[in-house]
């Protein structure tokens, strides 16, 4: 199968993803129920920063959590991936002549857009409200960096989803633990320097680490070289995780065909 076929499969899967998203939310339930909740989550951490009273803490938490909320959306990919198994459509996808990964890559891509939108609104709405307005017009570059970071986290989320596909009853647990690991270690709440050297080394391979660094550099008015370097590092991490995810789905399908566990998790 060539790239054109893969792209066509991805496009159809993405259309299905958008339809799914529209079933899950109306514009009102999304804006009030989801976005409202997300903005409250960011405010929750900014208020902790203010309560602590150490200069710079509230701003650090504001930026970190505004970008982090994209993870909250993107990791829904774990649930939508497992949804194929729960809905009984996974065996059909295995039987289909087309490749499996483009289906799953498109099937949850709505969350990348959702996450990008949530983070962007948080930066540009809550930022000024808490007195941390992004510099303009350079601050607008936050949007592509956030999108890039969401894509990178998506690759990671797909890899986790591919593993959990065989353990669907663990999907909520896996999503929560993944979410909090990223929250703890990627520089969202505390700088990476807070952690011991081995942990600092490991988190270089996690998505969000470099994307968040790029956003922080941009909003701090650092040189374009710093921002670009961090953004490129985030892209590299994202590409690596997409490759890992593709491998996991491929091996999972091979194993399921071989041992006849297409429909059963064990």
């Amino acid at each position, binding site marked *: 199968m060539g790239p054109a076929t893969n792209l066509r499969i991805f496009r159809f899967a993405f259309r299905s993803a958008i339809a799914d998203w529209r079933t899950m939310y109306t514009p009102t339930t999304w804006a009030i129920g989801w976005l409202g*909740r*997300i903005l409250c989550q960011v405010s929750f951490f900014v208020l902790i920063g203010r*309560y*602590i009273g*150490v200069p710079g803490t509230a701003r650090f*938490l504001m930026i970190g959590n505004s970008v982090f909320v994209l993870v909250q959306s993107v990791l829904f990919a774990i649930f939508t991936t497992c949804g194929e198994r729960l809905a009984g459509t996974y065996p059909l996808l295995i039987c289909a002549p087309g490749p499996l990964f483009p289906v799953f890559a498109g099937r949850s891509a709505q969350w990348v857009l959702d996450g990008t939108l949530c983070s962007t609104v948080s930066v540009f709405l809550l930022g000024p409200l808490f007195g941390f307005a992004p510099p303009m017009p350079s601050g607008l570059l936050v949007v592509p960096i956030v999108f890039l970071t969401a894509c990178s986290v998506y690759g990671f989320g797909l890899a986790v989803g591919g593993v959990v596909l065989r353990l669907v009853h663990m999907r909520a647990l896996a999503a929560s633990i993944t979410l*909090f690991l990223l929250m703890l270690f990627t520089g969202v709440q505390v700088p990476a320097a807070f952690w011991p050297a081995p942990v600092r080394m490991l988190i270089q391979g996690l998505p969000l680490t470099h994307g968040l660094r790029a956003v922080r550099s941009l909003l701090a008015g650092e040189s374009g070289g710093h921002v670009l370097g961090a953004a490129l590092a985030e892209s590299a991490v994202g590409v690596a995780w997409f490759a890992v995810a593709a491998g996991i789905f491929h091996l999972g399908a091979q194993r399921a065909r071989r041992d006849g566990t297409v429909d059963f998790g064990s």
Partner: protein
Amino acid sequence: MLTVVWAEAALQLRVLRRTPDRMLPLVVVPLLTAAILTITQNAGRADLAGTAVVGTAIIGIWGFAIYIAGDIIESERWLGTLEGVITTPAPFVVTLLARIATVTAVSFASIAESAFVADVFFGVHPAVHHKLLFTLTLACTWLAMTGTALTMSGLFVLTRAIGTYQNALTYPFYVLSGAVTPISLLPGWLHPLSRIVFLSWSADLLRACMTSGGVADPAKGIIAILVLGVAGAGFGLWSTSVILRRMYRLGTIGHL
């Protein structure tokens, strides 16, 4: 009646044991505690560890009640057992209350979880300076949480998008109730709204119990928790009976 209560409590404990994924809110508590403690430690404010522990415990209690207790009627309907439960001689409201009270009691494990994380991973040992008031506040919080969860349980039956509403009832309430940060940090126009959330009184009292100084006007806080809890329970009982009557009338006990 007491037999029914015990039987329902035992049933709910068995349900929780057999479906470990339902314990998810309690898995989240230690992770959130760690996240908040890293912030306080990094800022050199180890003195706020007690606040972090109490705050995340409150979040755990609320989250567990909203996710599990709020879901009880819907789960019964999904399993196709709601008709059976309603038509048994035991009053449905009693069975429901017993199960919700059990879930809420289990959610208090989040206090131990938060304290454990603070102790083992961060080496901080927040002390409770007013033990009696702390215990009394927790008991009142349990009653109020049970009443509030009863309301949710009834209302969630009316929607197919339970998850959306459960999600929406988390962080907005954590901010509004001042679970981790005092409500004095919120804009003034939000204060009256915060005060009708019983958790804001619970959080204030529990935080005050962690300080060595005196606790200002504890009776007012306790009364507020109880009054709001009773109001929540009253509304929950009323809304549940209205919803049940509607189900009887329309013949939609199994499907709304």
